[in-house]
């Protein structure tokens, strides 16, 4: 284990900022304690105590990003399209992610960096992910929305992190997870330490055994889902706040008459428009249909297809739901049969 003193953190980040953008959780000005991950500049105050409203998934899946740009040109009587792809190559260090968020990166890797037969990996994700270094802050406390303990390793999860900081008196113990993390912890701001790791938070536990099958069994009981969603507003907050949600929309924007680009942006499965077809048919017309797909995707389909649960227990969807919905109640009801 390595140790870094509290006062050396700004120094560490300052050094990292020379070669990469550094992101850290910060309170948004003019708001009531809204914490977001944002680019950190020297002197900026880092908020490690509060829960961020959004995860930092935008570092690998920006809210909107360009896929390619195009330009039409005349060719005799007709026209031809010239297309230029984008290859993001950014170096970002993120400080202060929690284990749940870091784990979500590993979950996303299973989809976007998959090389299984018949699937493509995502060059944009890959470009950003490979340039990302994750310094995780281990949780020694939690609130009642947290439920990472429902998963195998709970707050001790290391997947997705490069280096994990454990808060101890006067600073942090630093446990490297990856090669990147090892290199990072080797610099002179760290020193070796034999201190014990602090006890990590024990969060709420939701029983997930058998949920994969149970959800499928409950799937057609639409009245159950209607009851479960009767106060759901069908907004997209839970999807956008979720570190593992990754669905996106693709749209084109023109820049003048002959040029423009194709973009992708976050999309949320709770939106009516998400599956609305141009014919007017919508296979998921009610919040109930969308919500059951949402949970089934997270706890049944994705585990089946990619071997990972599409949830890491961060609790944002519970903490921030404008309708005060707690999906753990629904999971419990499904488990109860």
């Amino acid at each position: 284990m390595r140790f870094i003193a509290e006062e050396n953190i700004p120094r560490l980040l300052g050094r990292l900022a020379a070669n990469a953008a550094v992101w850290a959780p910060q309170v948004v000005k003019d708001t009531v304690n809204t914490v977001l991950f944002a680019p950190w500049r020297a002197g900026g105050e880092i908020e490690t105590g509060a829960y961020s409203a959004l995860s930092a998934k935008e570092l690998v899946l920006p809210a909107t990003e360009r896929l390619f740009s195009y330009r039409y040109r005349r060719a005799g009587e007709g026209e031809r399209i010239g297309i230029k792809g984008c290859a993001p190559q950014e170096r970002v260090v993120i400080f202060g992610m929690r284990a749940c968020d870091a784990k979500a990166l590993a979950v996303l890797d299973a989809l976007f960096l998959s090389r299984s037969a018949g699937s493509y990996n995502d060059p944009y994700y890959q470009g950003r992910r490979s340039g990302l270094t994750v310094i995780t802050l281990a949780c020694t406390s939690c609130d009642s929305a947290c439920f990472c303990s429902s998963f195998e390793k709970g707050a001790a999860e290391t997947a997705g992190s490069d280096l994990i900081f454990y808060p101890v008196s006067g600073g942090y113990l630093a446990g490297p997870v990856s090669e990147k993390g090892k290199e990072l912890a080797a610099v002179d701001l760290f020193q070796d330490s034999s201190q014990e790791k602090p006890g990590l938070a024990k969060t709420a536990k939701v029983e997930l055994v058998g949920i994969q099958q149970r959800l499928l069994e409950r799937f057609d009981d639409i009245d159950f889902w209607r009851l479960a969603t009767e106060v759901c507003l069908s907004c997209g907050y839970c999807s956008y706040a979720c570190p593992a949600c990754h669905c996106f929309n693709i749209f084109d924007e023109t820049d003048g008459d002959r040029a423009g680009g194709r973009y992708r942006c976050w999309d949320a499965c709770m939106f009516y428009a998400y599956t609305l077809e141009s014919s007017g048919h919508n296979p998921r017309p009610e919040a109930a249909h969308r919500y059951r797909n949402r949970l089934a995707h997270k706890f049944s389909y994705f585990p089946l297809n990619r071997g990972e649960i599409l949830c890491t227990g961060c609790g944002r969807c519970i903490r921030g739901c404008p309708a005060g919905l707690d999906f753990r109640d629904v999971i419990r009801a499904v488990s109860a049969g």
Partner: protein
Amino acid sequence: MIGVFICQCGTNISATVDTGKVAQAAAAMRGVADAESIQYACSDPGQAAIAAAIRHKRLDRVVIGACSPRMHEATFRRALDRAGLNPFMLEMVNIREHCSWIHSDVDQATEKAAGLVRKGIARVRHHLPLSAGKTAAVRRALVVGGGIAGIQAALDIAAAGIPVTLVEKSPTIGGNMARLDKTFPTLDCSSCILTPLMVEVKQHENIELMVNSEVDDVHGHVGNFEVDIRRKATCVDEKKCSGCMICQEKCPAKAPDDFNAGMGQSKAISVASPQAVPLVASLRKEHCRRFSGGKCRVCQKLCPAGAVDYGQQDEVVRQSFGAVVAATGYGFYDWTGAYPTYGMGLYPDVITSLQYERLLSASGPTGGHIRRPSDGAEPRQVVFISCIGSRDESVGRPQCCSVGCMYIAKQAILTKEHIPDSQSYIFYIDMRAGGKNYEEFARRAQTRYGTLYIRGRVGKIFPRWGKLVVMGTDTLVGDQVEIEADLVVLATGLTASDGAGGLARKFNISCDENGFMAEGHPKLKPVEAEAAGVFLAGACQGPKDIPATVAQAGAAAAKVIGLLSRGELETSPMVAAVSQSKCSGCFKCRDVCPFGAIEDERPAAGRTAARVLASLCRGCGICSAACPPGVISLSGYTDKQLLAEVVAALR
């Protein structure tokens, strides 16, 4: 595939806009298969070139950069139609009125024109083929105003076999023309030419004449105007009254003589004039003794036909019309408040030309003898002053009355004929005698009748020893002039008649700054009002003389006949439509629709959605701006089209 045609309009456009360059810029836009500059797009060869391009280059959308769409949109839509393309796949870009004519720098104007054309191309991409619906048109016309314009229009329409209702607010038709003595430049008797037409109106089987009536309220639109006509109570049963005028003779209550422009006296119950049509008495309550608290029942007792009915009430009749002719004529400028140095109306011998006209008339209060109002003496020195309340910025009336110069000349001639030893003087600004034989006529007033023309304005009129001293400037000589006159006649200008503004609002006719009704286009739609199905005849549209009035009335009648002859009208395809599957049924559209064109419908159980009645919708789009999710949209002006235009205008 879009075709773009840039009209040079001779040099009207090409003088300041390089149309070739504009076409080139258009050709660089996506989807533009053809872009060319055309000398006159609206000409036959121009239209033929457009049609050829549509066929050969398989165009499905056309942008024409030319004059205002208000000018030629209809022309080019027809051209598209003939070439086999839906006429609404056209976008006209105004590079003349809004560009070449208002800019002088060729580069700037060219760049702007290219920008406007780009905006048009962006918009035309969202055009959809539209087709007109049909609605039945009521085969009946309304003519409002019973002067010579209304009479002529009514007779012409009726002659085509279309029923007409002629509404006149006063007790007789004939209007101002009936009050004139003689007409210029022929000096034929006004009554002699007008009265037969008035009688024909009364007798025509296709004309329903409603005097003492006004338009109260109007609903509906071209093809089906529902008009409430108020027949004002006159206390005389029109059907019974024979026009014997006994009531008028015996009536004890004096009243002003409107027909004689206040020059004589009338009675509370009277027939407007001996030539009135219909020849029916009417009672003016405000002057009647019975209605001012007395017990007088003289007229009722004496009426041999028993036509007097004091209890008569206003009656509102609703009739439907396919088309409307406004022929509300003109009034005279009230000079008394505006020209303080002329005595504010306090000198009895300063009169208006209409009053003088009544003094000249054999049917007038003096039996055709010129007697001045103050003492009944025959005037020897008569001064005419032109342009009172016209061509006079100082009283806010820049407009030319267009008849003053001629009627003064006429009155001077008639003065000489009535009183051979009289001398007439005319103060004038400019002599305007543009009509056929007018100049010769005015010249005759000087040469043969010895009228003295003095170019200049009169500064002051004041009484001195039984005469009126007229002080003015002769601007040709540059001298002060002072004339001792027995009578001064003011050639007052023409104004829109009382109530024309109210009527205009009811029919959605817009008015110009002088209060005259605005024609659809000063050149190409001189008789059409902007409201569909409404036409203008005579001086309501602007001051004009009798021949011009009669011509315009005939033209308006021809338009009405053309409109109603087919029995049905094409409804505009540019109406609103609701995408019912997306409508939440909040009916904000219905709240704002001025035409009641939105109704509710149940497209599915438990859902209510709006529906547009296309025959009532007139395409204003107020609903479209009121609908939050934009599910009601106005064809031809959809959000998509306007957004495309906004974006293209700014990039």
